[in-house]
């Protein structure tokens, strides 16, 4: 018993150090973002003399972070809405309705889950270019939907399997069509899963850089994360402004995390245990 307690205190030290190592990089970046260039060059560690927003303002306005931000917002919003709609429809059908080929379709989704984007990116870029979808919002949205749909279908199907079939039967007896059951029963009942999966999908899309680089080649169509990569070249000798840009790109995710960490963690855990 006492040995157990002692061991717990022994590991408490590295655990605390690790927590520090997890938080420190962001604190460092926030501190640098608040410094003047002179302050940064003289001493990297010292606390900034004051909380300054000039660097944030420079980063925001000079390389078009504002525009990139809006691009990301548009693309992520449409992608997530489409993912949840298509994913919940398929999840409902695959879990609650009996029809020929349903297990084949589910297996196909699982197989697609194991096809990484890097493997299909060359032909996908060609197809998109042939259809005139390269460098357009719909093109990138389609690419995101295609990329994250297998995961979304998989989790929605697992979730809807936990809903007793009697609920569907009762709603059918009450005179609902299959579509009515989906709209009036399944969508509302699926809210917790839609929230978890939706947040994860939104994070994946928001954080992506590879798909966006490939699908949105021109400068004004960049998403925020691609915009961040172009900051470095611009501000290689002005690290505080560079750090400010990084901070701007990180803040939305940090806010989401502060309020919704439980749902994010639940989504990740569901993906692992339902397999």
């Amino acid at each position: 018993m006492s040995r157990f307690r002692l061991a717990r205190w022994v590991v408490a030290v590295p655990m605390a150090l690790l927590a520090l190592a997890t938080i420190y990089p962001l604190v460092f970046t926030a501190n640098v973002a608040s410094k003047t260039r002179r302050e940064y060059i003289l001493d990297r560690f010292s606390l900034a003399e004051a909380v300054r927003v000039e660097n944030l303002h420079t980063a925001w306005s000079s390389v078009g972070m504002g525009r990139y931000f809006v691009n990301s917002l548009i693309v992520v919003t449409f992608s997530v809405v489409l993912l949840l709609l298509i994913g919940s429809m398929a999840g409902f059908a695959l879990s609650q309705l009996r029809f020929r080929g349903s297990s084949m379709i589910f297996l196909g989704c699982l197989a697609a889950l194991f096809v990484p984007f890097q493997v299909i990116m060359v032909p996908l870029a060609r197809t998109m270019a042939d259809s005139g979808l390269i460098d357009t919002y719909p093109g990138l949205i389609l690419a995101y939907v295609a990329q994250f749909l297998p995961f979304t279908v998989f989790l929605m199907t697992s979730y809807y399997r936990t809903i007793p079939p009697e609920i569907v039967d009762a709603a059918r007896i009450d005179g609902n069509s299959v579509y009515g059951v989906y709209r009036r029963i399944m969508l509302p009942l699926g809210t917790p899963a839609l929230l978890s999966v939706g947040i994860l999908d939104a994070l994946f899309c928001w954080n992506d850089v590879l798909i966006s680089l490939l699908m949105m080649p021109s400068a004004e169509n960049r998403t925020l994360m691609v915009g961040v990569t172009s900051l470095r070249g611009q501000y290689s000798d002005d690290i505080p402004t560079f750090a400010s840009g990084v901070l701007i790109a990180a803040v939305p995710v940090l806010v989401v995390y502060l309020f919704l960490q439980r749902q994010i963690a639940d989504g990740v855990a569901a993906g692992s245990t339902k397999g």
Partner: protein
Amino acid sequence: MATPAARRGERLAPYVLVAPAVLTIVVLRLWPLLLGVNFSFTGDGERDGTAVGVDNYLELFRDPLFQGALGNVALLVLLLPVAVAIPGLIATFIYLRVPGHRLYRSVYFFPAVLSPVIVGAIFNLLLAFDGPVNAALAAVGIGRIDWLGDPDVAMFTVVGVHVWATFGMALVVFLAGFATLDAALLDAARVDGASLPQTIWHVIVPSLIRTIQFVFVTTMVGMLTSMFGLLYVMTSGGPEGSTYLPEYYIWIQQGQMNRPALASAASTVLFLIMLVVGMLQISLLRRAGRED
């Protein structure tokens, strides 16, 4: 009663509901896979569209950059146990209620939600030759390390940052596994006077074998397919091509070198690697299933 037309509509309803998903996945995931394999046997540039047999593959395996990329894949496989053990151990400590365990869970998970691009940019600052990490090392009397500029060090640096950024995901998966663990087994171990390492090895590891396997595979897949952002921002494959991975090689050949067919060949090789990883998972899970 419903009209025949309405009844037919009802019968077709499941197909209507799955149609958008099936269309998207077939047209934009599975079909491109076949196109890509087919494309890898055609030529680039002047030989665009003509069949060239296995020329691309021969060129690929002769390319020192791609050889380096494959070597790095092997390195990742070797580092895999470490990348799994870290979140596993931490989850164990949190499960055993180390002082502060409630806080740690949310603190450790937080880098996992950051984009690799942001993580890479932050660590570019921290790991710069005249940056704070080296300053801290100098303060304790260790010489500076060229974290991203030394070909022998750079890949380890990038993998380390990747582990820093993603161990929270694996941690959450492990904690979900712990939620299914039978607490009575742990109590029994305590009563029997088992030490912490004994408890971990004889009680926790066998009970969580499925979770461990799952984390092994997802961590491997993550290392093979989600380090692009880090490589792009931190090293661009350098120095001296020492931080290439197949995924980065594909990007360079497609995006910079205008060699889409060669990129497709590299994609196909990456897919085969992923397939082997997937097969391994299935066979491991089967074996675990038989033991139950």
